[in-house]
Structures are given as structure tokens and as C-alpha cells.
């Protein structure tokens, strides 16, 4: 009996020590993995002007409502938003981290030109947000945009890039294309603890391949 009691006391001490080590170790580790970044070759490819041409017939303008990206399991609502007075795009609220916004002063998805959709990479409310895995996308992955007229515009990813925010190439990202293209944009790279901002943006470039009802 004495042996059993001593054994229990020893076990309790071992559990307490193991618990202390485990909680200390966990407390000093990041709770989530850092958001995925595109591989370096992708950024180079985009910088050198990788383009994908679409021969599919463009669609008439219709407001996008939902986005579905099977490769990263994203299914999200799209809200139409414009520009702030300071010239930046109006973005989703951090209180709604699984909502995306479409820049409605530019083309709609499926129209000729470049449509832009923004989503958060993370949010204090939930941790990983709607575009947390955007950097995991690879050329060939499909993006489905449900439009207000019930058509679904289908896009194929052809490149990914990560740009420093201080040198964000707005002309490369938003420039007009003679065929319908899509940009999915979120934050990424290092996080500046001093300014509380990510230092980079991850951009997925996609080209329109057709529509279905």
C-alpha cells in the first residue's frame, strides 16, 4: 500500500512537471502557422509579365455575389465596395473575416478587364480568415464566381506573387486586360509588430475560362 501511495505522489509530481513544460512550450509558440507565401519562382514569373490569354466570350456586367475556390476550401460572400477618399480600396470589416469585397469601380468578374477581390488573411476574431491559404493556390486551380444574373464565371489561376507593400505595383496588378481576368488579393509576408501591419501582399492572378449557369 505504501508503495502505491508513493507511486501516486511520484506520478502527480511527474504530471505537474510535464504539464509545466508543455504549457510553457505551447505558450511561446505561434498559435497558427504563418500564412502561406507563393514560391519565389511565381513572383519572378509574374514580374516578367507572365500573362494568360482568354478566348472565352466575355460576360455582360453583373455584380458578383459569391466566390468558391475548391483548392483552398473557400466559399464566401462578396460585397461590392469602392474607394476611400485616400485612394485605397474599401476592404471587408475585420469583424466579418469570412467576407470578401469586390472593387466595384472596376470591371466585374467576366467582363473585359481586371476584376479585383480582396479578403483578409487573418483576424483577431477567428485567427485564419477567408484568404489565409491564398498563397497555397497554384497555376491551374479554379475559382468560381457566382454572379447576380445566376451565371457562374470560371477563372483559372495562372500566377501568384508576393509584393512588398512599399513597392506595390498597382499598374501590374490592376492594369486593363483585353480579356477578363481576376485578381485575388490579401496580406502576407512578415508582420511588423511596430506598425501592426503585414509588410507584403499576396496576389493570385487568374484568367477567365468560361461560364455556366
Amino acid at each position, binding site marked *: 500500500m505504501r508503495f502505491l501511495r508513493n507511486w501516486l505522489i511520484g506520478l502527480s509530481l511527474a*504530471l505537474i512537471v510535464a504539464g509545466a513544460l*508543455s*504549457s510553457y512550450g505551447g505558450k*511561446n509558440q505561434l498559435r497558427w502557422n504563418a500564412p502561406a507565401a507563393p514560391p519565389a519562382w511565381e513572383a519572378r514569373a509574374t514580374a516578367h509579365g507572365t500573362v494568360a490569354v482568354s478566348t472565352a466570350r466575355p460576360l455582360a456586367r453583373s455584380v458578383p455575389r459569391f466566390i468558391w475556390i475548391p483548392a483552398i476550401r473557400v466559399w464566401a460572400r462578396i460585397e461590392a465596395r469602392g*474607394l476611400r477618399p485616400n485612394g485605397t480600396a474599401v*476592404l471587408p470589416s475585420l469583424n466579418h473575416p469570412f467576407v470578401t469585397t469586390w472593387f466595384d469601380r472596376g470591371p466585374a468578374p467576366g467582363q473585359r478587364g481586371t476584376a479585383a477581390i480582396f479578403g483578409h488573411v487573418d483576424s483577431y476574431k477567428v485567427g485564419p480568415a477567408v484568404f489565409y491559404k491564398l498563397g497555397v493556390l497554384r497555376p491551374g486551380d479554379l475559382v468560381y464566381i457566382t454572379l447576380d444574373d445566376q451565371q457562374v464565371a470560371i477563372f483559372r489561376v495562372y500566377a501568384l506573387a508576393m509584393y512588398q507593400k512599399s513597392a506595390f505595383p498597382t499598374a501590374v496588378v*490592376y492594369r*486593363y486586360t483585353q480579356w477578363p481576368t481576376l485578381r485575388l488579393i490579401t496580406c502576407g509576408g512578415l508582420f511588423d509588430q511596430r506598425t501592426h501591419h503585414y509588410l507584403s501582399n499576396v496576389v493570385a492572378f487568374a484568367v477567365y475560362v468560361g461560364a455556366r449557369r
Partner: protein
Amino acid sequence: MTGVRPSGQVTPNPSAPGTATTFDVFCGRQAVSATLFGVTLGLADLNLMHSTATTAPGEFVLTVTLPASIAPGHYHPGFDCSNGNIGAVSFTVDPIPHKAPETGDGTTATQTGTPLTSVGYGLIGLGALTGAGAIAWRRRVAQRG
């Protein structure tokens, strides 16, 4: 001046800052050159337009990249033809976002405390309970003895 009314079109329309934009004008068959006035677009004052293998006689084109700083709005740049005709083309410049978007608050980059933390707290609790039980047991045995 000839009796032909000069005309023109812009592609794409609407265009956007930083976008390659083509101006295509028709001056009349007798014209051998044309000039686009670019000051209002933030371009050079006079921009010589060209005829190409695919343009008709008296038709001239010019492709320029609109300045990234051009303001959104409606533009009507004029053009001048060598046969004395003058005209203007109309097009719209749509806005584009000017700065990089802030799409995240760094939660995944900064927040610490993995499931290991919870497991650790659980082990500490379990150890404390086991220890307390063992000590109580020993006291009870000692009281009986």
C-alpha cells in the same frame, strides 16, 4: 481642310491609370499624318500618330501608357490632321486603388499559445488532483494507525 468629319475612338474605354491605351483617329483620305494633344492626359504636348499595315488611308493610331497619376474622369484629347482637320476623342479613365490593401491584423503571425498550452494546464491539474488524493490517503492511513 476637307469635307470629311474627323472621328476617333479609344481602346479600352473605360481605361485606367497605367494602362496601355490606343487612340485611333480618321482624318480623311488626303491626310498623311496626325498629332494627338496629350497635355490633358499628362503626356507630351504633341504625340505623332502612325499609320500601320492594317489602318485605312487617312487613319492613324497611337498607343500610350496612361500615367499612373492620371485622375479618374472623362477626357477629350484633341488631334490635329495634316489636311487641316481637327477633332477630339472622348474616353473615361476609371479609378484604381492607389495603395496596397491592409487585409489582416497579424493574428496568425503574432498570437501564441498552441494546444500544448491547454494540454499542459490539464496535466498540471491532473497531477495536483493525483497528489492531493495520495496525500489524503496517507493521512487517513496514519490516523487509523
